[in-house]
Each structure stands twice: as structure tokens, then as C-alpha cells.
């Protein structure tokens, strides 16, 4: 069974702080995706990383794929209340995505 463990599980911070979410696995994935999910909605794709060591930036969000393609991180700079949500990493495995355990982020004004 392929498992993607995310840490931390919960994160409550003040507006303006920086944070990093980690996604770790013992398995190698051909690509890794990050999603954000808000209550009552489905996950929304933020980014896909494909190459080991790849770094992608999306405004205040920075995504990194580990060299061995087993792990990834999401760094948010100067968090805002609008960043609040459930962050999910997902590894592509053959014909489907395997989702991580999730990190629930709350940003207080």
C-alpha cells in the first residue's frame, strides 16, 4: 500500500506568518500534485510537479518535488485568511492518484 503522510496535520497561524507543509512517502511517484479543498467543495488543483528537484512558484506558494520523487513540500509566504483550507498532496500511481492524509490550515486575521 502506498501511503502519503502529510505533516503537520493541523496548523493555526496568524496572518503574515510563513509556513511549510510536508508530504512524504516511501514510494516513488511519476508526478505529484497539490490540491486545496474548502468545506463543502471538491479539491482544486494548485500545481503538478514532475521532475525530481523541481521547484514551482504560484504567487506566495512555492512547491518543491524531492530529488528522489518520493516527497514534496509546500511553502506559503505571508499567509492570508484566504489561504485557509485543507491542503492535499497526491501522487500519480499507474492509473490513479493516491492522496495524502491532508493538512488543515487556518489563518487568523
Amino acid at each position: 500500500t502506498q501511503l502519503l503522510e502529510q505533516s503537520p496535520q493541523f496548523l493555526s497561524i496568524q496572518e503574515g506568518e510563513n509556513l511549510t507543509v510536508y508530504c512524504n512517502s516511501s514510494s516513488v511517484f511519476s508526478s505529484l500534485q497539490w490540491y486545496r479543498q474548502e468545506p463543502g467543495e471538491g479539491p482544486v488543483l494548485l500545481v503538478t510537479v514532475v521532475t525530481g528537484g523541481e521547484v514551482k512558484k504560484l504567487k506566495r506558494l512555492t512547491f518543491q518535488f524531492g530529488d528522489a520523487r518520493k516527497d514534496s513540500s509546500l511553502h506559503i509566504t505571508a499567509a492570508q485568511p484566504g489561504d485557509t483550507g485543507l491542503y492535499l498532496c497526491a501522487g500519480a500511481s499507474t492509473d490513479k492518484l493516491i492522496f495524502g492524509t491532508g493538512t488543515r490550515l487556518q489563518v487568523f486575521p
Partner: protein
Amino acid sequence: GAGVSQSPRYKVAKRGQDVALRCDPISGHVSLFWYQQALGQGPEFLTYFQNEAQLDKSGLPSDRFFAERPEGSVSTLKIQRTQQEDSAVYLCASSSRQGYGYTFGSGTRLTVV
């Protein structure tokens, strides 16, 4: 349509009742996935279709769960003789290309009482 549409949004079923959940994927998307999500957890894979072919159903928790996509577009997830542990959000996603980003629907929240 512009997005993935799921119906109903909410379903309350009495234990033992059969339910059917519908998914309308993005037009032209050949891949369709069903996931089950418990509160506060990541989605767990149930089954996958490529066009009308069900290529992977390894995540279906029991033989009470059945999915179909007879014409390669709309899909239905059926749960027979529902039990309390079936209570969850059922998410449908479609993709134009294997391994690339999924577009998810808003899900169906099933509550078995």
C-alpha cells in the same frame, strides 16, 4: 458542462436502503474516478473508468459497492444495503489525460441513519 457535476449534493439514507449517486464529468474527459472522503481526511480511491471500461475497482470496500459508466460519459455509483460506515462524502473527478490534474465535483454527502 464547464465542470464536474454531482447529484444529489446531500443524501440521507436509512440503514439497509440502496442509493445511487450520479456524476456528470467534463465533456470529452475520458478518465473518470470515484473517491470516498471521510471528514478531515484525504480522499480514498474507489474506482476508475477510461471511457466505458472500468479499469480499476480495487478500492471498492465491498461487493455492496458498484459503479458503471455505460456510454463513457455519465457515471453512477451504487451502494446496496447501506450501512453506517458508508457515511462519507463521495467525490467524482474527471481528467482528459492519465496522470494529469483532476477536476473534482463538489461531492455527494451521504449520511446513513
